[in-house]
């Protein structure tokens, strides 16, 4: 099953290399004309990063859903994306042009946001643990969104504002090979760590009491899984901006296909995430003369899938 998915992804990745704004003939490809070579050098980094980003966002989403025992948990519902967006916006305003600093700012801020959500959830004295988390996440996400709003109002409307706005909707358009390698490897490390932890996630999703009874310290593994997830998400967000819905929907799709055992659901989510992201970025770069913001595409793909899964739920059980 997994082998088949991998095969599909590899074929899709290779065939998508032939699609883009540049119309190339068969001859171009066969003779490897300069145009074909340029097209490859432009498309390969994006395809590689699409796969990594899709896989790590989906794996992170799956891990967060297991850790928080909440099917609605996702990077954006916990405030990671908004936190990273805020960090990046502040970075754009303060150290314009210095990529590493902006990305570091996004990364740290993403981490801070999820910690804040966690902290708030402990303070909430209303509802069960799931509701508390959703409420805390809403509060934290709203707070960081407001922060982004403040930064936007301070930004230069002619120059900085469009950068922030486009950034909030995500894009792989400006990715350099250097960014693909650095952010890509950080995201990959996070995703692999999530994968390694996935067998413990099953125990965590039973609840703290059960985990302790089974001799697992829930706190250590929970923190490790959270840290691995937000590392992956923040790394992707730091160079590509906010990408919605992948982290929420792909884990559901993964579980739908292979069941709720995290040892299988996490890799499945990652593979499906990679595939969907590949297609989404191809649409973003290839459909119109202007690049379409990635989140617009991922939302258009993700929302129908989400609704479909929700309406299927009953029949499965």
């Amino acid at each position, binding site marked *: 099953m997994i082998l088949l998915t991998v095969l599909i992804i590899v074929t899709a990745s290779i065939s998508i290399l032939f699609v883009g704004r540049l*119309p190339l003939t068969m001859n171009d490809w066969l003779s490897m004309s300069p145009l074909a070579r340029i097209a490859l050098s432009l498309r390969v980094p994006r395809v590689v990063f699409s796969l990594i980003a899709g896989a790590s966002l989906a794996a992170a989403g799956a891990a967060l859903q297991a850790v928080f025992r909440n099917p609605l948990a996702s990077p954006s519902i916990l405030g990671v994306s908004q936190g990273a967006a805020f960090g990046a916006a502040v970075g754009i305003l303060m150290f314009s042009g210095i990529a590493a600093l902006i990305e570091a700012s996004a990364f740290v801020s993403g981490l801070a946001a999820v910690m804040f959500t966690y902290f708030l959830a402990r303070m909430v004295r209303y509802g069960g643990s799931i509701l508390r988390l959703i409420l805390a996440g809403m509060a934290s996400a709203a707070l960081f969104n407001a922060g982004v709003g403040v930064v936007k109002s*301070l930004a230069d409307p002619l120059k900085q504002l469009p950068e922030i706005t486009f950034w909030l909707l995500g894009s792989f*358009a400006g990715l350099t090979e250097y960014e693909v390698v650095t952010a890509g490897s950080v995201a990959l490390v996070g995703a692999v760590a999530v994968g390694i932890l996935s067998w413990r996630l099953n125990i965590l999703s039973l609840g703290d009491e059960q985990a302790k009874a089974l001799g697992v310290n829930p706190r250590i593994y929970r923190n490790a899984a959270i840290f691995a997830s937000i590392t992956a998400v923040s790394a992707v967000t730091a160079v590509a901006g906010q990408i919605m819905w992948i982290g929420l929907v792909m884990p559901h799709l993964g579980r739908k296909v292979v069941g709720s055992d995290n040892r299988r659901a996490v890799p499945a989510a990652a593979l499906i995430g990679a595939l969907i992201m590949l297609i989404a970025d191809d649409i973003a770069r290839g459909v119109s003369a202007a690049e379409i913001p990635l989140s617009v595409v991922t939302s258009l793909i993700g929302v129908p899938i989400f609704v479909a899964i929700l309406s299927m739920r009953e029949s499965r059980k």
Partner: protein
Amino acid sequence: MKFCKQKCLRKGLTKTAGLVIILVIVVIGVLAGSYYFGGMISGVEENVSDTSTPSKTSWVIDDYGRNVTLPLSIERIVFAGKGARTIVQSAYAFRSAPEKIVGLDTSSAGSPIVQAVDPYIENKTVMEPLNLNAEEVLALNPDVVIFKSYMRSKGGKQIEESGVPVIYLDMETPETFFSGFMILGKVFGEEDRARELVDYMKSVLDVVDDRVSKVPESERPRVLFLYYSTKGGTIAFKVPGQHWIQNVIVEKAGGISVSANMSSSGWSVVNLEQIIRWNPDYVFVVTYRSDPSPTDIAQQILKDPDWSTVKAVKEGHVYGVPGGFDSWDMPTPKWILCVLWMAKHLYPDLFRDVDVKEKAIEYFMTLYGLPRETAESLVPPEVQ
């Protein structure tokens, strides 16, 4: 069972009906409220025109189509808010601007032209443009406040309500640019000068048009106007949308803008594949900053292997737009010079006798009444 169903249904119905009633009440309330307040606001506006100064009054129609009655004598003018910089550069073409402008934004006050033209700039109230403070503006006791058009929703209305005449200027298209100049002329009480300056600026455009208009459509070069943005850590290629002044500049200079049909109205991001597909004959670059300068980027593009198949690169036709941060393509009076500068690049033979640098010096001398040396210092070094 059946009984419950009916009961529940009835209960449900009552609930729904209740909700509908509440909804209707809310909608009516909102409508009535907006009608009431809308009426109040238009009432205020009517009052303003009613209580205008006695005897002869003058008025202008601004770019929102608002009929603004001007006080009989205007001695204190304030420019404020975001984007004021572009209109302030036009305002200083009027002789009485240094005396009459009492307050302006930091960005305008720091611009080289204002520094060169206004001897009293040190004594003026300089305001932060990003967060408009209505009290700060009103404290200057202005006779007229002038904003860039998009400031209306960002604090402009507050000042309108205080009764001080507010004028919104767009000046982003040739039409609103020249009409804005005429409005400024009226505000400064220099209508003759406004006419004279508009005629002069149009004459510069005519110099280009006379030569370029004879070039048939099929022989016009295809031009990419490229905003090379490095903000936000990543490189983005952006192109101006349909009605933007950058596309107007390209068209007036006798080129065909490859991005003229982009549906978006602002800058849209394109990827390099799209640029290679357009395969423009000429590329003009802006960065809106001095580091990297447009000229640096033009050089970089010429050397970039990924760009090597683009016709403009093959033929060496990649140029940085003069001005850096204070770029010539912006909707300040300099956009007219940009047309001339670009036309000379597109048609070197047709413009062999035109010295762009000399024309730019004459332009700054005419517009701002500056001595030759000062005017020369305002021409960026990259203009030859």
